[in-house]
């Protein structure tokens, strides 16, 4: 019985240790921090990059790669330093893409009875803070709504929009916005193109959140290649056709009407 108690206690201690380490690691990690001059209270300076926060200490790494764990109180932090540390510890965010797609029928509209229906879409994004604590700096969220050719392999930037916001207690640390643009997509059986199905359809999304330094702090996408090609995607305009690298291209051309006519289809 005593042995069981000892084992249980050791196991519990181990679990607590694991949790603590995990918490510390998730607390704030900077992968590409800049080298800065840090001034200590005794006047000494240290040129190092910020690594992470560790409760009341911060971990710095100097040019030789050696890590220094220093009490925050021992550092003579300027306003810029404080802001830098806050920006290096952004909140953990939950991102969600919003879409509303409806079919528009024209059969009841005079003189439009034979007009094929359209798909009309509106897109938006929602950001919610998952971690605790205040973050008193503005954030910018931008979404990209991606479409795809029905017949063809091109992708289309259907819509993109962005908004700047703060996460605070007043808004319950949540922000949500929608684009005013209504995107129209066609989906029809084209008699002029060998009766094949042509048009556009919704494919996926990418949401990016950046801090005031324009540094990405959170990203979510329906497909990994969208994240990987963010730099190209940001150069695209509305209804640009692009390939899987988000490089601009032209749409897939339809089959020749000549062929249809010569074959006696039309």
């Amino acid at each position: 019985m005593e042995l069981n108690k000892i084992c249980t206690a050791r196991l519990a201690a181990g679990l607590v240790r694991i949790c603590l380490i995990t918490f510390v690691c998730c607390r704030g990690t900077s992968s590409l921090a800049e080298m800065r001059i840090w001034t200590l209270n005794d006047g000494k300076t240290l040129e190092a990059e910020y690594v992470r926060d560790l409760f009341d200490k911060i971990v710095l790494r100097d040019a030789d790669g050696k890590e220094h764990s220093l009490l925050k109180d021992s550092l003579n932090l300027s306003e810029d330093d404080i802001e830098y540390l806050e920006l290096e510890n952004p909140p953990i965010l939950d991102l969600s893409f919003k879409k509303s797609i409806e079919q528009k029928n024209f059969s009841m509209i005079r003189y439009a009875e034979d007009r094929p229906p359209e798909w009309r879409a509106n897109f938006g994004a929602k950001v919610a803070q998952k971690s605790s604590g205040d973050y008193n700096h503005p954030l910018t969220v931008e979404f990209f709504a991606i479409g795809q050719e029905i017949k063809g392999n091109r992708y289309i930037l259907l819509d993109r929009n962005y908004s700047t916001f703060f996460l605070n207690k007043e808004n319950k640390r949540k922000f949500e916005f929608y684009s005013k643009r209504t995107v129209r997509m066609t989906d029809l059986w084209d008699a002029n193109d060998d009766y094949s199905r042509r048009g556009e359809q919704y494919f996926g999304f990418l949401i990016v959140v950046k801090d005031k330094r324009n540094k990405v702090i959170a990203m979510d996408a329906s497909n990994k290649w969208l994240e990987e090609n963010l730099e190209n995607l940001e150069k695209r305009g509305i209804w640009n056709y692009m390939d899987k690298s988000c490089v601009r291209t032209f749409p897939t051309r339809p089959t020749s009407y000549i062929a249809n006519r010569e074959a006696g289809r039309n």
Partner: protein
Amino acid sequence: MVKKSLNRKKINAGAPSGLMISLLVHVGAFFLAGLFVVFTILPSREPEFQPPPPVERPRMNLKKPKVKVQKSSHPKPSSRIVAKVKTKEMPEIQLPDMDGGGEGLLGGTGIGGEFLELPEFKTISTLGTEDSIGSDLVGTFYDFKRNRSGGWNEVADVSAFLGIASRFIRSDFNPATLARYYQSSRKLYASCLVVSPTWSSIAPSAFDTPDSGGGYWMVHYKGKLVHKDGIKFRFVCQADYFIVIRVDEEIVWAGVWNTPDRYDDYQRLIGPYYNPRFETRRHFIGNDRCMAGEWITLEPGVPKDIDIIIGDENGQCGFIIAVEEEDVEYEKNQYGEPIFPIFRTTELSHDLLDQIYRDLPVGEVNCTNGPIFRDY
């Protein structure tokens, strides 16, 4: 007999009950009186401003000026040197390409934060764009199935529709003949006309009513036809349902869809004003065989007036206007037919090419090479 024992509390001597009651009543009365007492708060009076005594200032003795006027003097005409400035034609400002292709406005609604407006998104249609670059043609949209105030107007059939367009043509393209029909206040500026077969609703959608049906509409484009080096060429077009092109008040191209089979419609539209060149109906562009028009010679930099009207009766429509230069050999497509360059007044933007290529098969017309009709 029931004895009733009465426990009577004796009142303490020295304090009769009536006196107590009287005291209570008086206290209550004083209390009530106190509630009704009104205190008037007098504001402290601020000291009044006492202006300083006026200062006596010496007066200036002004003398009336004396001007000698000659009785015989007359105002002399002023001589001015006027320089005649020759305004050289400057190249038109090329507006930057706008993001194009879709529909709708930029901007959004946010909850919980500030929202920044992105630059307004401009629609690009194969019938034209909202911004002019100077060398383009201005398009005005007429909807014959609506009256001038936007209400419905019955158009009996295709013949009636062509009759309305015909009156406009025969009146020397006078817009007054269309005054009773709906005219869109929105203009579009076209640097080319390459509309592959699509739904007739493309026109009302492009101009002002995106949810409208098509049919019984007409667009009149107007502008200048000019080439900086001079050129001899002719228009090669495919129409569904009709196109009429006029240069310096002379019809140089006219046709309806499948003109040989729809010759009655052709006659109703344009009649004796123009004889189509059926011998030039060679190969397909869009959903019909294209046809060539009259040869046109442009002197270097000398502009001519050009009017193009396109119209559709319903269902599908298509308008492709290409050019053929004299004595030029063109690349052949997979069917051995020449690929003519399109009529254009500028290089086409990527956004406009997206809209054209979306519906234009490869090998029908060339959108990137060939003459550009502008004076620079």
